[in-house]
């Protein structure tokens, strides 16, 4: 393995979204909120959603953790804003498969593809999936905290 493999995980997209996370704020008018916490590694975040007419009108997050978890959450909020809830759920399943399964699902992941490098570092997969499991819990109105470890 060479520095190329590192580059595959820590692409510029990841650094950018870690340095300047998008939609990184609270949402007082949110109607779907959920928390995610991986206590063993220390990543913690809250996902805020405003859902209207079956569509995710707005998405934001707050939290602290490693670059992978922050970038994943940031990319997630950008990807789901304005999308129908069903499409968001489908995206959650596809992203989970992208990060954990050998063969990536057939779809254009756009910037989210930057996360796929985490497969070479299995210990870090839970960092990338935390925001998505939290999103899933938020949509389902589930009260319990999400964790991926």
């Amino acid at each position: 393995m060479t520095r190329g493999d590192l580059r595959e995980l820590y692409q510029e997209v990841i650094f950018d979204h870690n340095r300047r996370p998008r939609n990184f704020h609270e949402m007082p008018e949110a109607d779907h909120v959920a928390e995610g916490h991986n206590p063993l590694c220390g990543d913690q975040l809250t996902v805020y959603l405003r859902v209207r007419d079956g569509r995710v009108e707005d998405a934001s997050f707050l939290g602290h953790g490693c670059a992978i978890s922050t970038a994943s959450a940031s990319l997630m909020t950008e990807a789901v804003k304005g999308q129908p809830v069903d499409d968001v759920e489908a995206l959650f399943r596809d992203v989970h498969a992208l990060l954990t399964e050998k063969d990536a699902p057939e779809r254009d992941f756009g910037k989210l593809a930057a996360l796929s490098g985490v497969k070479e570092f299995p210990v870090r997969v839970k960092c990338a999936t935390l925001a998505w499991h939290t999103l899933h819990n938020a949509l389902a109105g589930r009260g319990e905290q999400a964790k991926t470890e």
Partner: protein
Amino acid sequence: MSAVATRGREAATGEAARPGVAAHAADFPILARPVRGRRLVYLDNAATTQKPSSVIEAEARYYRESNANIHRGVHWLSQHSTDLYEESRERVRALLNAARSEEIVFTRGTTEAINLVANTWARTNLGAGDEILITTMEHHSNIVPWQLVCAQTGAVLRVAPIDDEGALDVDVFAALLGPRTKLVAIAHVSNALGTVNPVARLVELAHAAGAVVLVDGAQAVAHTVVDVQAIGCDFYAFSGHKLYGPTGIGALYGRHELLRAMPPWQGGGDMIHTVSFEGSTWAEVPQRFEAGTPNIAGVVGLSAAIDYLQSVGLERIAAHEHALLEYATEAARSIPGLRLIGTAPEKAGILSFTIDGIHPHDLGTILDTEGVAIRAGHHCTMPLMKRFGIPGTARASLALYNDESDVDALVAAIRRAQELFSGN
């Protein structure tokens, strides 16, 4: 296999780490293997140490030439295997300078040793309102067993604080000792901070208050001479795998009169004197606490590890690691944005740190791709991390085979990570 850069083993000058000791890296076969195409720079020794060929071979040779179940076997192999096992017990006695070999109980490791004391001595001697005193820097294995005891007996856990450098304030510790304090459990060396506690002094204070003392020696035995009689503690626990020995083996030292009064914990073969359906009687110590067939090969490997340690010389190792720690600390202080966690005046070869703007896990992953093995996270010391207000640290920990080129590689990898994160 791609060429792996050789280690700079030319004689260092002046105050630098002694090259003689680190040359023993050649005894450790795993250190020659590349990781991710790079030279392995193994700096995770507080998690586990690597093994010299003599230890690996001792375990294999046991299975090739000596394997048989121990104690009360009629045939030659069984007697021979028993001799090896009991000789190892004597080796451990000598390593710790315990008064008698009956004071050495073989366990799976430090965690099991502490749980043994918790489930036998503590369960029968503590009652509601009694106090167990530990410190903020303890490893989960020296916290959780006591929490379980408190839940079972109604005893109360009290915690001695540390200062911002990671050192125990002995006066505050002393002030927490009282007539209700029955047990004190303290680390000899902190796995997360590297702090070396003044255990003999703390034992003296605890005994004056009438408390029994258990010392967690997991991070100490490979790096400094341990003399349990000089320390004066009642129990001392350590793990073989942190001592260049196999996993799955460790030992508890317990003062003879304490062990003799302790009820059994695990019941079964070997820890009994007689068994009948009307009732069973127990073996003498230490057998009373060694139920079932033990990890005999592990015991043999541990013995070989102690031999190895003594052939290199613990005092030489301690001096080497101390000089290397100074080199590493100075190098760390020259890295902008690096904050050392654990700067007590007395330290073992453990360097915990944070880097501004880089989460420990990200740092650990980047270092991994450079062949540098460190540990990142809370190091099984969640309360300690909370006290410092951080989710975790990156931790480099030294052993006899590390030298300055390892520290240089660590520093270069950290700088590489900083470049990547700053957008260069």
